[in-house]
């Protein structure tokens, strides 16, 4: 029984962790290209989920998801083009505040477009009560979907940033924008691209997690805080680390519920995060060297 429970908590923790990680990855992409944190990232997740649910009313699921992702990418591009692109010399704090403002405004718009109802996509396989049972441990097939999508995205991104030229260009823009331009890189387009990419990944995350978590006009904020926590815990900019950190945080939360009142789950998880940061100011997997070289 204890063993079984242990694994059940473990599975729960992994589920949480993967959900957080999918959001954290989106943070990392824009961070990698611009050196800023886009606090409206959670809203991409929300828009993706909401749009897919709306479309799913008259389109088959895969098509609804694809179109929702594309629409969210367009939103991402528009956000960059309207609000970010033409700012000369953006300071980090200024960008943080603009994106916070955006996140608030998008949320309010969503409230007026979709109302305050709770929605969800249907389970990709099975339904609300299906679960796979492996040696007494139960797991919803949707969790496997989330894990699968997340892994594919992380591996693809890791490859993208380390080995493709566009990925490197994104990092170069974050490191020193003027120098990047002197290398012939069109920094503005690169930033737009990073918004498009992270909006797309956010939206995809929103679609695959929505059967589990539901989406609502304001579900972005909570996810964004968790995603940000995980991105920081892992060390900013590194998607693989974000997944590892996400799972660690998820498992911590889950096991904290085993032994302590669930009401303090977040407080406990964040206390642990703080303690880790005090010992490793660059996050669990972040390079200390890089950390020292970063301005902000």
């Amino acid at each position: 029984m204890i063993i079984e429970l242990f694994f059940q908590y473990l599975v729960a923790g992994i589920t949480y962790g993967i959900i957080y990680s999918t959001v954290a990855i989106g943070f990392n992409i824009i961070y990698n290209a611009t050196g800023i944190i886009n606090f409206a990232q959670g809203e991409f997740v929300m828009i993706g989920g909401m749009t897919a649910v709306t479309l799913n009313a008259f389109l088959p699921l895969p098509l609804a998801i694809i179109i929702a992702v594309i629409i969210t990418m367009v939103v991402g591009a528009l956000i960059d083009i309207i609000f970010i692109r033409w700012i000369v010399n953006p300071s980090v704090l200024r960008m943080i505040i603009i994106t916070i403002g955006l996140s608030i405004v998008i949320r309010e718009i969503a409230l007026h477009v979709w109302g305050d109802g709770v929605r969800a996509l249907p389970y990709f396989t099975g339904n609300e009560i299906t679960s796979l049972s492996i040696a007494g441990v139960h797991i919803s097939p949707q969790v496997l979907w989330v894990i699968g999508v997340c892994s594919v995205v992380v591996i693809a991104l890791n490859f993208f940033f380390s080995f493709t030229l566009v990925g490197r260009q994104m990092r170069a823009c974050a490191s020193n924008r003027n120098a990047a331009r002197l290398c012939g890189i069109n920094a503005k387009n690169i930033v737009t691209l990073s918004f498009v990419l992270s909006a797309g990944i956010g939206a995809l995350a929103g679609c695959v997690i929505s059967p589990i978590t539901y989406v609502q006009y304001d579900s972005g904020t909570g996810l964004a805080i968790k995603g940000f926590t995980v991105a920081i815990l892992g060390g900013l900019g590194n998607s693989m680390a974000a997944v590892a950190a996400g799972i660690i945080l998820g498992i911590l939360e889950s096991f904290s519920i085993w032994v302590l009142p669930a009401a303090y789950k977040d407080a406990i998880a964040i206390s642990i995060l703080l303690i880790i940061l005090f010992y490793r100011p660059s996050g669990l997997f972040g390079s200390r060297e890089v950390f020292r070289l970063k301005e902000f």
Partner: protein
Amino acid sequence: MPGKRVLQMAGLITGVITVQLLTRFTGTGYFLTQLTMSAYYSLVIIGLCLLIGYAGQISLGHAGFFAMGGYISALLTTYNLLPYKDNAIIAVLMKTGILVVRTNLYGSEILYFQPWVACIIAVSMTVLVAYLIGGPILKLKGHYLAMATLGLGIIVYRIVLGSAFFGEADGLSEVPAFTLLPGLKVSGNLSVRISNYYIAWGLVIIAFITLLNLVDSRVGRALRSIHGAEDASSAVGVNTAKYKLNTFVLSAAFASIAGVFLTHYNGGIGPSEASVMKSVRYVAIVAVGGMANLWGALIMGVLLNFLSLRGYFGSFDDAVFGGILIVIMLFAPEGLIRVDIFRYLKRAVSGEKAGEQNDGSS
């Protein structure tokens, strides 16, 4: 006190008195309620302005400090200790006047901490927490610092929301008035509305003047130097860790005092005061005020809180606020209240024509 400061102080005091007199003669005394509440929020905001704008350390957790002040003093002044009155310690505390008895609305007796004692305990606890946590937290930089302070705020939020003695989601109510001096009490009661307006503004003005003094001094210079280049700052002998910590603690203390006073004024406090959204609001107002601009922080702090508390934005409170953030950061990243405006006004007043060519000098 330098002459400039005396002038500024006189200007502020005149402004505060004028507003009160205006409301009096136009029969709009009710505005004072929201002006009083906004004053307390501004106290948090100017403290945060020192931390963010001058010392360059972001904090996304200041609502936590506000809530710590408010909640602790609310708890101490509402928790009924009567059932324990036979306990030796309680008895001693009663004798010394630290614990006092009041009758509540429904006629039952409550044994509680004298509000002054509660206030001192609340503020010192906040200061202690800020001091202990500030050391390690302020070693972090940039987004990591933002996360850590955000986390601090979330922890406070979770604790007040999850603990039965803090009233969980309902928060604490029926907080008694806080008698500062005989005849002068912090309370939302209609009969003391005017005096409370002056209490709040008196507090804000004192705090504001001390901050103006501070940023104009050697310490202020050191803080700005830390903001700009921490390495170089320590190379000229600034104990950067200590200065950052002191500033952090100072701004936490301001937030905490604001929390204590506003809680007594409102007669209660709820968990929304500790929420992330509140912290974000404080930071945003500092930004809208122009970061390293105490005047901007004060004016925007009063203005935006006043409008929001009056309900002028209706159901669009958040939306309007988000919109303001975006617009100001896009078009006036230095904030709306700029030093040049004052300079311009001064010129206009003294009848000079605004110089066109002599920029860069002066």
